[in-house]
């Protein structure tokens, strides 16, 4: 940190139209819900579940080499919320998908978000604050200042919860929700990717 000129190297100004829109980094705010996309087998499972739903089975169970699905539907009380049933099934599928079960797949060992996402997926009832950009996560404004938030902190939508450094620019991230911080998924100084869960908020 001795020579800020070299550390905080200035990016040349854009000179071409085609990419100017995405030019120099600016302070951003998170704009998206957490991403819960899963890998390959999800599609088959989605089809399978659709089939089960369409056909109105009371119970469905499938077990196969490290993979097992079991669906039961109480047809007597059809007012059971289908959403929660769907969520449960999605959960069962999410975990192995992250582990790289798909075909044609070698896991990406260096994938910065892999571990954190797995952890995050366990916390069903929490509201996630995902990273709006790829960069380096900092819990405080400078090495010797206090973290913006800790476990137990209460946040409002405009509370700054962390900084993500990208291309030497410090982007303050706001909570955009209110509630209590109950989980912090990433460590200070850790790289984060787009959409990676940062905080779990209990409303």
């Amino acid at each position, binding site marked *: 940190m001795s020579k800020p000129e070299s550390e905080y190297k200035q990016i040349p100004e854009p000179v071409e139209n085609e990419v100017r829109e*995405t030019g120099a980094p600016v302070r951003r705010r998170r704009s998206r819900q957490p991403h819960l996309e899963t890998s390959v087998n999800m599609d088959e499972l989605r089809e399978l579940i659709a089939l089960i739903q369409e056909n109105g089975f009371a119970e469905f169970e499938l077990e196969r080499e490290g993979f097992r699905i079991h669906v039961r539907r109480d047809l007597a009380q059809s007012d059971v919320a289908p959403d929660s049933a769907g969520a449960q099934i999605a959960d069962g599928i999410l975990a192995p998908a992250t582990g790289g079960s798909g075909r044609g797949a070698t896991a990406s*060992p*260096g994938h910065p978000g892999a571990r954190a996402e797995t952890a995050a997926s366990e916390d069903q009832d929490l509201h996630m604050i995902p990273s709006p950009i790829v960069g380096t996560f900092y819990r405080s404004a400078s090495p010797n200042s206090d973290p913006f938030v800790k476990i137990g902190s209460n946040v409002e939508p405009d509370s700054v919860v962390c900084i993500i450094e*990208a291309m030497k620019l410090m982007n303050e991230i706001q909570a955009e929700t209110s509630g209590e911080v109950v989980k912090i998924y990433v460590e200070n100084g850790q790289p984060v990717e787009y959409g990676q869960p940062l905080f779990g908020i209990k409303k």
Partner: protein
Amino acid sequence: MPSGSRKFKKILIANRGEIACRIIWTCKEMGIRTVAVHSDVDRDSLHVRFADEAACIGPAPSAQSYLNIPAVISTAEIFNVDAIHPGYGFLAESSYFAEICEACNIKFIGPPASVIRLMGDKVEARRAMKEAGLPILPGSPDPIESEEEAVKLAREIGFPIIVKAAAGGGGRGMRVVHSEDELGRALEGASTEAAAAFKDGTVYIERFIESPRHIEIQVLADEHGNCIHLGERECSIQRRHQKLLEEAPSPVLSPELRNQMGDAAVAACKKLGYSSAGTVEFLLDTDNKFYFMEMNTRIQVEHPVTEMVTLADIVRNQIRIAEGDPLGYTQDELMIVGHAIECRINAENPETFAPSPGLITAFNLPGGPGVRVDTYVYAGYRVPSFYDSMIAKVIVHARTRELAIARMKRALEAMVVEGIKTTIPLHLKIMDDPKFRAGDISTSFMEYFLAQNGPKKNDVVAVAH
């Protein structure tokens, strides 16, 4: 090791799809680690799976992910890469991006930013290439400022002429003009279209050649002033200026004409201070006169046909050149063996060309002698609707063009893609076309072909979800 030589330990690939995989294969062969960047809908893409490291850099729209320079650079810095390979499309021909890489001490795998910028402006490129000795079509050396100027110039050149966007590409901002009274409207139309597409309404005019061939020369130039060409590619089979299939060599080029065009391209690149792989595109008229059209300062989709007939690995050459190495062989050592054809397999309705993204339910790749497939999809993959519709390239190589056509047919017949529509049936029909088989092709081929094989009146146009 020559001075300035630097060995890359890790490369970031600022692209997706088959070309990202293609670059990974060569990096693996060279022992270079790879970092993939991807949008959030591309988590299941093979380039993410086969790269050593990967990061999601944004949501599906390209502008927020694959064209998001701060996100790409930030990832490059986090992963501490030595170089960035831009592939084709996206940031590949952004001189701004190349400059940023340079400023951040990340080697951009491509030519100098100044050359990218020069070749990106079609008017400037024509002027520069004319100075460098390449024949250009009679026409405006400068942007057209007024209709009067255009009329005067058009009379000099003689009709038909073509109006083109200076910043253009992909056929947008173009108008063919057959007579003086059409000229005014054509200028206006082309300029408006160009302004909308490229944010630059500048246009120029040049002589229009009916039914030319599109012939391009692949060049390799190192940073030490060495430059060679790897022969030509015949890319006349186009629909709306989008190439559909490519061949090497061209069925009509004599060895003399090949040398003449190749030598001209090499001489121009040397004068330009070009380095890396690049492609000089020419129009070839029926009298075998050739005219410089434009230069692509990047790897091209159709590079595999050249690789098949020369046994060169063009991506490896790009990387070695970027590392500062001199070219590994000379023009005299180049050998062109046999004939190669590439068919672009797009997720499109083969009759209406409507995009057909969606879930691939079954996928079988052709194998056997002389067949190469470059792809990034697999059974169970959902082709997203956000990007280019090309899902695979099938490339064949055989002793002769006739054998290559037979080989392509059987390869396409053995290729199974279920769940989405693809252009495989279209390519199969082209392989059976008598004019194609005779090598009697030009850039008007597809107009003729589609008139003969167009969709039947009552066909339902199925656009997938």
